[in-house]
């Protein structure tokens, strides 16, 4: 199990897997693209894990295999050399999985935590717990499976890249000084309730005075009981600080390591365009660059069959009308994709662009295979 010992390397006994983080706004086909990329990597003989933090079950559909909280082997034809695994943790289980992992050696503290009022009320609202748990499960999978590549399919939102920041944020919260502050605050507030005089006449000058004012203000805004609950929560979490810090460090190494490749996924819609630009800015802030921008449903030109069928001797008026309608839709997408690609080329001149065609297939797995053929070059 990850984080069991004192080793802080992601994979002490072997090489580190190549990580691909796929990000994009919602509805751009990110999950399908991630699955296709993972499949392309497996075709190249690489043992690959694809993980989605998107609670939708689309990956399960796309991979044509049931998905759960541990990596499942995706059946592939025997000629494929690489192994393919898929992982889709259940968000509803996230907090419990997380706490059970952290408090493995502290059952009594875990019980107190589950009984804490704030924990009970806010457990599902803590920042990125599901994302963090997903990353934690990936870290475990990396230790257990012999993986060459990991493809991370982020949440369908422009804030998806925050995923890489959550571990650090939560770890910073548990850093000693913050815990001590909340602990003190709780103590003072309770004391204040009993003995109003204790807050006065302290030494320490302006700095202390300022801090006291903040503490007093917090005490007024929250009730004494609420502050005690917050503080107790922190005290319990402090017990597992080491384990937490290790997890955060591993997660950060995995997601923000120097070799990690960021793939931005877009589709020819205005919303996807705005999300793409936002994500590109966000990457720059993280001092990372995108490896590639993938445009889905972005056919460059009419497929060759259009002209051929159009001149077919037995073509009917209904067929011609259908082709015309399909072509109208395709042209609108192509124009939008052209404009987007041009602008992104201007903004990110060094980033490789991949334009993928619309795949006409009924089954998600067929779409994944068709797209994978276009993505093999990303694995090199």
């Amino acid at each position, binding site marked *: 199990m990850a984080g069991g010992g004192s080793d802080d390397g992601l994979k002490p006994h072997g090489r580190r897997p190549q990580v691909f983080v796929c990000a994009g706004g*919602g*509805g751009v086909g990110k999950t399908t693209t991630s699955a296709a990329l993972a499949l392309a990597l497996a075709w190249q003989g690489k043992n690959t894990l694809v993980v989605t933090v998107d609670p939708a079950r689309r990956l399960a559909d796309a991979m044509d295999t049931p998905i759960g909280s541990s990596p499942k082997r995706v059946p592939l034809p025997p000629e494929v050399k690489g192994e393919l695994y898929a992982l889709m943790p259940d968000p509803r289980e996230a907090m419990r999985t997380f706490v059970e992992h952290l408090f493995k050696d502290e059952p009594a503290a875990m019980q107190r935590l589950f009984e804490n009022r704030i924990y009970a009320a806010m457990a*599902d609202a803590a920042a990125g717990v599901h994302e963090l748990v997903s990353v934690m499960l990936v870290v475990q999978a990396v230790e257990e499976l012999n993986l060459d590549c990991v493809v991370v399919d982020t949440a369908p939102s422009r804030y998806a890249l925050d995923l890489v920041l959550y571990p650090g*944020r939560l770890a910073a919260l548990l850093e000693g000084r913050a815990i001590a*502050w909340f602990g003190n605050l709780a103590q003072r507030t309770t004391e204040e309730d009993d003995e109003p005089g204790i807050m006065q006449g302290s030494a320490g000058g302006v700095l202390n005075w300022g801090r006291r*004012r903040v503490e007093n*203000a917090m005490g007024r805004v929250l*009730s004494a009981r609420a502050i005690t609950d917050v503080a107790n929560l922190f005290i319990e979490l402090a017990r597992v600080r080491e384990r937490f810090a290790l997890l955060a460090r591993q997660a950060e190494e995995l997601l923000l390591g120097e070799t990690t490749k960021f793939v931005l996924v877009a589709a020819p819609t205005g919303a996807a365009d*705005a999300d793409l630009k936002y994500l590109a800015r966000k990457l720059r802030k993280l001092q990372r660059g995108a490896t590639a921008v993938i445009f889905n449903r972005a056919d460059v030109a009419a497929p060759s069959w259009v002209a051929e069928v159009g001149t077919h001797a037995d073509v009917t008026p209904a067929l011609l009308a259908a082709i015309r309608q399909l072509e109208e839709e395709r042209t609108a997408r192509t124009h939008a994709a052209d404009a987007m690609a041009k602008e992104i080329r201007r903004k990110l001149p060094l980033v490789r662009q991949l334009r993928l065609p619309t795949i006409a297939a009924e089954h998600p797995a067929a779409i994944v295979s068709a797209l994978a053929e276009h993505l093999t070059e990303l694995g090199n």
Partner: protein
Amino acid sequence: MTDFGESHARDAAYAENPRTATVLAGEDVGVRIRSMNAGHPPLAQVVLVTGKGGVGKTTVAVGLAAAAAESDAGAVVVEFGDGEAGRRLLRRHRRAAINHVVIAPQDAVARCAVPLFGSALLAKAVLGNFAFKRFLRATPAIRELAMLECVRIVAAENPGVRVVVDMPATGHGIAWLRVAEQLRTFASSGPLHDLADRVCKDLLAPERSSIVVVTLPERLVLQETLELCDAMDKQVGLFPSRLVVNRFPAALPAQALDDARALAASGAVPAVMALLAALEARHASLTEADASLRDVLHGAHIPPVVLPAAPSDPTPADIAGWLKAEGAA
């Protein structure tokens, strides 16, 4: 060609295609047909538009505002974040004045903190405190409460004006709706309790706010959406007023699929097979969209509002027109 004529063309297509028509003919069917006839309840002053990422929340929100701006005293669109998505759509709508209020999440907290702490200076000191800053960054619940409080303020400052809120994509389900209630209980007294209480009573009450959930005509997405609606009802006591099913695929000429099959049967030319595959795929997505609406929404207490898929991004006026045609604006 983006008026609601498309929908009627679709109805005609169903009538011509017996396979789809049977699907729609049973008595429990007609979710879509019922949606045309069943009256939708009137919307409250505040409309909270929610749904997962990429379903077209912003488009629907701006469309609802555009519809309200034409008839009512005016409309405000509230957007969180950088406001880029709403701005992009509003640039394409010059007909009626829609006010665009953009609230950055951190500004929302700052705005609420001043009355909470009684002084701007003190609020600044608390928000600048290192421990509190970290606490805030790790618990988005506080920020979400502040965002809701800002919406409450906008609504109070604009009586009689429709306030449409483009809610952030909900990764964590209905947590943002529960947060006010949770914090009200958690801070059993004092200013934070009062603030949460105000949000509960003056915003998150059926007579104050309507919830519009946007979703897509895909089985799994619909299923999740319906679970969300149910959870809202049971856990928060707010049942969505509208279930907007966005981007219903456009039908192709009814005869085309049969013609393509006949053509393919007469000789398997690759080009013909490719055309057939394209038509089969569209037919499958239409059938699936219909079936999933019927199966998933069967027995649900909410008639869907179905909006068509358009080849290029629809304008706010398009959306407003579609919503009005469905009696849902």
